[in-house]
């Protein structure tokens, strides 16, 4: 394998080319999609055609009769193996295949197994099912009071203490209600100089990883191996072991590279299905989704956000009420965590004395929603930064000045009661203003092509509490191997972890080997999500490397060698031959305090992320078409480990959010049928949709608790993009759009409404 020439100095802070890039561009990187095992069966899923219904009958006889079909499986067969086949990180609410009821169009109902995937697909078309239709609910606000109830009884997983009170609850679609009260928002709003209230909406969208979800299971008499495109191998092992009633050491989860994840490949997706299919068939089983099927697997929450702010005579925000409804779809997935862990940042990066937040996770009859690059934050920033601009304009204040006046600065106390530490809010806003030349007059364009500009800034708290473990070995020849469960899904984590270990051990990052997730080998890690890995796993790898370094020093000392002696000589003496290795290990668990009854805590998060975006654009006044001429993204990512990867992560996040802002939307009809479940009708941005000019910059900052001053970066540039664009459109043509996406038609029609 080719790699860049090793550089011995300055491992951290250097733009080391990605260690796997050669493998990827030559088509040699390992992906589960390419895996074929002897005797392997392919599973093809038969899906529900109604959004809510009681299953009256499933007829698999025609499918079973197709030549080449090995077996057709429904929940009946699964329950012979796993009596309670329900999974999920927050609620045990999702059946491996539908049981008694279906809750959304596209829900898996049966699976055909065949040696030929085309035979499996053809046979799956021959399955028929009859449903007794039930009333359905699709809107997140209606779900609060709807008579249509998605789950007869709530089934919290028991892992999270704040969900315990929901156990066994009936006649509700509320999967979590989170409340935060600081001061007295209602009273402060009454006495405020001016009060503003708005309601915003975001749409349901899809992650669209270019590698669709795929899992393979193979079993022996008493063990099971899963090869899966997963962001959370440790969770998969724990959950599969729980479902099967096995000890964890009988379940092995292997994860090679991922072709993108973005939160789609978290927790259990296809793993429970292939596991039970393999145990039923006693053969390896693979299920690979098509791009189209991904729309029916996991999505991003649609939301409604009512926000109300009171401002004093000096333009200071004194009170804020936030009410957020998260459309979780038919199964909770990680939605309840999004509702709370992101919900508490709903008031935004502003210093507000009186705050009330009510955040609700709702079940509806739509495909399930989970985490998507930002863990709910982009939905919140969309609302509060559009709101901020609307207030500023009504108050006759410059949007930048208004933000400056109210910004929560490092060292101040956030609405939760947690002090903002190493959160460069001020620096990020000022750098954005400088890069946008905000103080300079702005060219407004022509009557046909109006120009506008806008800014937005968002704050995220890293999810807590979570744990990472790592091991680092040093071989007799000095070669370094890192064992960690962080999944490289394209974000460059292998390279970053190698740089951290290399820095500690004084070797070249290019020479370090990073062993991919294999739960038989790599120690526990919570998951690769929420921009947590560089901070948590980075710290664990750093500590493990330091442990290895210390052990090497101890071995040398013990054997009577000087500190600069070669390991070969030391080990030769110690073991009588040139052999042996040193294993360093460490775990990293940041401290955390659970919120009290008012949702307050003095330790809500191990670190904060700050992201701001600025946009210059032009609007075609005859068509509503928007062309973004300049997009500036500024972020606090601490001190970059790899500046080039930081830049591309910021660019990638912003471009992804650009799609969620301008074009992407899952379009459902009145019966909950998805009308555009293919990339032919669901459009993600292509190269020609990118802004003419784009700047991605990390401010000079340090996360003192992070590895070499670093913290997470993958999501930060998603925060400000949507509201910055809406604010710029308003600046250009004077129309305010409060629902995403900002399509040319919506902009044009809104322009016609103007008096």
């Amino acid at each position, binding site marked *: 394998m080719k790699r860049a020439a090793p550089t011995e100095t300055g491992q951290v802070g250097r733009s080391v080319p990605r260690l796997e890039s050669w493998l990827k561009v030559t088509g040699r990187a390992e992906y589960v999609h390419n895996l074929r095992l002897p005797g392997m069966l392919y599973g093809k899923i038969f899906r529900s055609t109604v959004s809510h219904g009681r299953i009256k009958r499933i007829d698999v006889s025609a499918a079973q009769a197709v030549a080449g079909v090995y077996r057709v499986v429904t929940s009946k067969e699964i329950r012979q193996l796993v009596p309670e086949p329900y999974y999920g990180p927050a609620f045990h609410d999702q059946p491996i295949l539908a049981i008694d009821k279906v809750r959304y169009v596209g829900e898996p109902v049966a699976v055909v197994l065949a040696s030929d995937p*085309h035979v499996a*697909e*053809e046979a799956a*078309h021959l399955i028929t099912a009859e449903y007794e239709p039930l009333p359905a609910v699709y809107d997140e606000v209606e779900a609060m009071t709807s008579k249509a109830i998605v789950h007869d009884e709530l089934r919290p997983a028991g892992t999270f203490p704040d969900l315990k009170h929901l156990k066994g609850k009936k006649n509700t679609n509320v999967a979590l209600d989170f409340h935060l009260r600081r001061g007295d928002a209602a009273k402060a709003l009454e006495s405020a100089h001016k009060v503003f209230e708005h309601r915003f909406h975001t749409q349901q969208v899809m992650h669209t990883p270019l590698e669709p979800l795929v899992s393979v299971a193979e079993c022996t008499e008493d063990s099971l191996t899963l090869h899966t495109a997963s962001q959370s191998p440790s969770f998969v092992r724990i959950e599969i072991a729980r479902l099967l009633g096995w000890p964890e050491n009988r379940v092995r989860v292997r994860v090679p590279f991922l072709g993108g994840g973005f939160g789609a490949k978290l927790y259990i997706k296809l793993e429970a299905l292939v596991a039970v299919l393999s145990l039923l068939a006693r053969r390896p089983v693979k299920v690979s989704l*098509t791009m189209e099927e991904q729309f029916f697997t996991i999505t991003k929450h649609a939301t409604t956000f009512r926000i109300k702010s009171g401002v004093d005579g000096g333009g200071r925000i004194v009170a804020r009420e936030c009410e957020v409804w998260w459309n979780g779809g038919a199964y909770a997935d990680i939605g309840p965590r999004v509702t709370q862990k992101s919900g508490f940042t709903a008031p935004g990066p502003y210093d507000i004395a009186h705050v009330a937040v009510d955040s609700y996770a709702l079940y509806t009859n739509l495909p399930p929603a989970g985490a998507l690059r930002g863990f709910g934050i982009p939905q919140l920033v969309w609302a509060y930064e559009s709101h901020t601009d609307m207030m500023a304009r009504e108050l006759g204040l410059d949007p930048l000045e208004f933000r400056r006046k109210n910004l929560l600065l490092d060292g101040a106390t956030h609405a939760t009661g947690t002090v903002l530490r190493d959160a460069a809010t001020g620096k990020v806003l000022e750098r954005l203003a400088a890069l946008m030349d905000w103080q300079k007059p702005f060219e407004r364009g022509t009557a046909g092509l109006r120009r506008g500009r806008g800014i937005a800034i968002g704050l995220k708290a890293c999810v807590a509490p979570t744990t990472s473990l790592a091991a680092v070995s040093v071989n007799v020849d000095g070669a370094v191997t890192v064992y960690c469960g962080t999944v490289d899904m394209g974000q460059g984590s292998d390279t970053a972890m190698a740089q951290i270990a290399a820095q500690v051990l004084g070797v070249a990052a290019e020479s370090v080997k990073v062993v991919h997730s294999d739960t038989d080998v790599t120690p526990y890690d919570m998951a690769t999500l929420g921009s947590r890995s560089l901070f948590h796993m980075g710290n664990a790898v750093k500590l493990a490397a330091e442990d290895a370094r210390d052990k090497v020093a101890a071995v040398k000392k013990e054997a009577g060698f000087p500190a600069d002696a070669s390991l070969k000589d030391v080990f030769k003496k110690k073991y009588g031959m040139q052999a042996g290795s040193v294993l360093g290990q460490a775990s990293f668990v940041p401290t955390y305090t659970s919120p009290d009854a008012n949702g307050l805590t003095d330790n809500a998060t191990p670190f904060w992320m700050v992201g701001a975006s600025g946009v210059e654009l032009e609007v075609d006044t*005859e*068509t509503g078409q928007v062309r973004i001429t300049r997009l500036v993204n500024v972020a606090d990512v601490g001190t970059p480990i790899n500046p080039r990867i930081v830049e591309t992560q910021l660019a990638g996040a912003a471009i992804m959010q650009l*799609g969620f802002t301008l*074009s992407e939307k899952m*379009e459902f009809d009145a019966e909950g049928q998805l*009308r*555009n479940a*293919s990339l*032919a*009708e669901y*459009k*993600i*941005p*292509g*190269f*020609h*949709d990118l802004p003419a000019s784009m700047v991605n910059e990390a401010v000079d900052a340090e996360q003192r608790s992070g590895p070499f001053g670093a913290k997470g970066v993958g999501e930060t540039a998603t925060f400000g993009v949507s509201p910055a664009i809406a604010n710029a459109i308003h600046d250009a043509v004077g129309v305010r759009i409060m629902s995403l996406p900002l*399509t*040319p*038609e919506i902009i*044009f*029609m809104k322009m016609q409404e103007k008096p």
Partner: protein
Amino acid sequence: MAPFELLEPKSLSEALALLDADDARPLSGGTALMLMMKAGVLRPARLVSLSRLGLEKIERGPAGELRIGAMASLRKLETSEVVRAGWPVISRALLRLSNVRVRNVARLGGHLAHGDPHTDLPPLLSALGAQAQISGPRGERSIPVESLYSGYLETTLQRGELITRVDVPAMGKRRAAYLKCTTRSADDWPAVGVAVVLDGERQTIVVSAATDRPTRLASADAADALPIESDLHGSAAYKKQLVRVYVKRAIHEARSAD
């Protein structure tokens, strides 16, 4: 996808004979066909590939016309020096037709015979007065590209007929423009496509995508009367506005074209 038989005849007569069967379909580039087969919309038992019939040639004909073999790839058309020199409006239109990967695979004949109004060359070639050469069980015929279309995904091609070549008259003093408007992403299929050809005082305007087939407009003002329906590209009202604007702009662009 259902199993099928793939045949690769080496002569046109052989291809026509093989197509004379139930559930047989010609395979041109396959970019649309494969999607339809994967979706289960089409389930042909036999695919007859046209790739070995020697229909790729792009050349200037005796009357100065452009002759495009039906199996010329869209990419080859885009980069052809002959086309660029004599019919630059075609080269320019191709730059925004889907993406380069699709253009490498898709062929002109399939692009035209597909009958999808959300494509770019049918309105342009119609406006340019191109003729389609057609071979079939009952011999050969030649018809204007404009009369290839009878409705949404419907053509006037008869069972067993193939487009073998497309002839585009020399531009002469004519000036032309094609404008594509997408509403979702830049490489989307058009929501509206407008081709305009100016020949002295004569003005040819052909609108597609918003209509169920390429449709000729008597004048720029005739856009309001077009039958336009709402779909995932936009509402009927919005697409009407786009047609009005893009017809105006295409005329303007054609006037300033070289």
